[in-house]
């Protein structure tokens, strides 16, 4: 029996805990890191959290922040609309790889090109989790999904989308672009903090892809899950900051 309540971020909304993500899902780790970052930056009251459709929709009432739930792929324009109308607010768009890189890719690309002053967090678990494990733009070559039951054939479906790499190509130097992973928590928090600070300082577009886990649809046990994340995904999708206009001055910007 649990006798001591776990320490949770102040910005979490407790009536909706425990959360509804599958056991072993990486969303909880991302949202904990985000919650702690919101606490540390002291931005809970002016943050607008917007979530996509897909597993990310389960986060709609996750935080004790104002939030809105949008459509599949459309979180980016909703966040842009809020930020354009109310620049004093801190807007965080939260989406999966299907929502961001496939159905919402035109919004992601153009928001990046326009250097919209929003922060977008895209959780990459290499498949469409909520709809039952179909191929995503990020599915690895050879990876089995419900729509690539014999493994992803790159001759037929192309290679996985490398989001931060393409966003880094189309954004000016004032944009922040990084790829984190739920296997490196301190680094994840540092990247999220930088992405939010970049918006708070009015620099420009801020984007963090987070490599995450989906044991339910991967059909993996704990050991296999971690192996797929750390060895296969992190090998294909290099983790690190691609653009950081904040420089080295931030005290939190030290070793992981």
């Amino acid at each position, binding site marked *: 029996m649990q006798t001591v309540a776990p320490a949770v971020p102040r910005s979490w909304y407790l009536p909706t805990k425990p959360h509804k993500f599958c056991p072993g899902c990486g969303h909880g780790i991302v949202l904990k890191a985000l919650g702690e970052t919101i606490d540390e930056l002291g931005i809970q009251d002016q943050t607008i959290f917007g979530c996509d459709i897909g597993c990310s929709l389960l986060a*709609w009432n996750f935080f004790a922040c104002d939030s809105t739930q949008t459509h599949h792929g*459309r979180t980016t324009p909703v966040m842009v609309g809020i930020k*354009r109308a109310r620049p004093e607010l801190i807007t965080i768009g939260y989406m999966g790889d299907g929502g961001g890189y496939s159905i919402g890719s035109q*919004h992601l690309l153009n928001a990046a090109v326009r250097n919209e002053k929003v922060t977008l967090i895209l959780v990459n678990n290499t498949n469409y989790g909520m709809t039952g494990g179909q191929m995503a733009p990020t599915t690895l070559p050879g990876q089995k999904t419900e729509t690539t039951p014999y493994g992803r054939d790159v001759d037929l479906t192309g290679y996985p989308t490398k989001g931060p790499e393409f966003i880094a190509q189309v954004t000016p130097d004032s944009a922040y672009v990084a790829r984190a992973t739920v296997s490196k928590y301190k680094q994840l928090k540092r990247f999220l903090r930088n992405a939010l600070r970049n918006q708070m300082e009015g620099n420009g577009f801020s984007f963090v892809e987070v490599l995450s886990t989906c044991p339910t649809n991967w059909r993996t046990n704990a050991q296999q899950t971690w192996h797929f994340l750390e060895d296969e995904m992190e090998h294909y999708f290099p983790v690190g900051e691609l653009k950081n206009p904040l420089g080295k001055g931030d005290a939190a910007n030290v070793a992981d």
Partner: protein
Amino acid sequence: MPQVMNEPQKAFITGNETVAWAALAAGAEIMFGYPITPQNEVMHYWTRLAPKYKRGFLQTEDEISAGFTVCGAVQSGKKAFTATAGPGNVLMQEPFGMAEGMRLPLVAVIQQRGGPSSGTVVYSQQEVTLTTYGGNGEGHRIVYSTSNHQEIYDYVIKAFNIAWKYRFPTFVLGDGYQAKMREPLEMYNPEDRGIEMVQPYPLIGLPGNIGKDREPQHLCNIYSLEEELYDVVMKISKEYESISREIVEFEEKECDGADILVVSHGVVSRAADDAVKALRKQGIKAGYFRPITLRPFPAQQLREAIARSNARKILIAESAYGQLYRLVRQEIYGETVAMETLFMPGVGIIDYDIINKVKGIL
């Protein structure tokens, strides 16, 4: 925001320019738009005027984005709007659906062009079904069909007030002819005419400390259980029905004792008006009925007009192949009056077309 005009101004301008001025006068704070003919000049005039009056504009990557940025802006408490047409109206059905489901006071001006598909860039009344009942919902929208530039000015202002008062997405349905032609009108500050301007308010991004002064605002748009959604849709339906009586608008002329009623909407109703006057001069007792709101539809008012007439026939005239006709048919179900039709999809209708049709069927 600076005052738009100190005293009423006579103008001779296009319908699209009228939209821009009316949105300014209504206090719209930001427009999101994407180029499509025949609404482009709404953006052209807005972008010239907006900086002078401290208003915002963003040209988005497509109409989907234009609709969703409007959704975001109104959620944050600002009067925002867009304008589109044809295939753009198709793409915007997705954000319009979000506005229906979340009760967002979105305002959109639709300048109908020919369809299906890319159709023509010129004119039609073929976006009636799409604008009134598009999307995967129940048509919980308010749609004004204007017929001249004065109405465009008046109803764009009204659209913002109605949208923010009742929180249903609100549309001003024009067309390519109204968009592009010049007409005289009088522009004014609505407050000077005693029009009460409904103030916008935020749904998210509220003042105060969360947990101390207030609870967080979580806006939901997808439900886990059928019963949850059922409750939401039933609540919205009841509210929509209860306010419909306050919203419906129509125009009626010479229906009492008439032998035939001509039913039309939008710019076609001007031809119908001329036709009815000409027919009357020729001794034919014709009447005129025009729904101004297509959603909610003035069904009771049309039934009463039919009842007060001697008409055994009504003529439905439209620049579409039966979109108004289907609307009328469903709204006055049970009436025994015969329904004749003049369908001219994608082309204009003049008084002569209606006069000839009436003479042929009486």
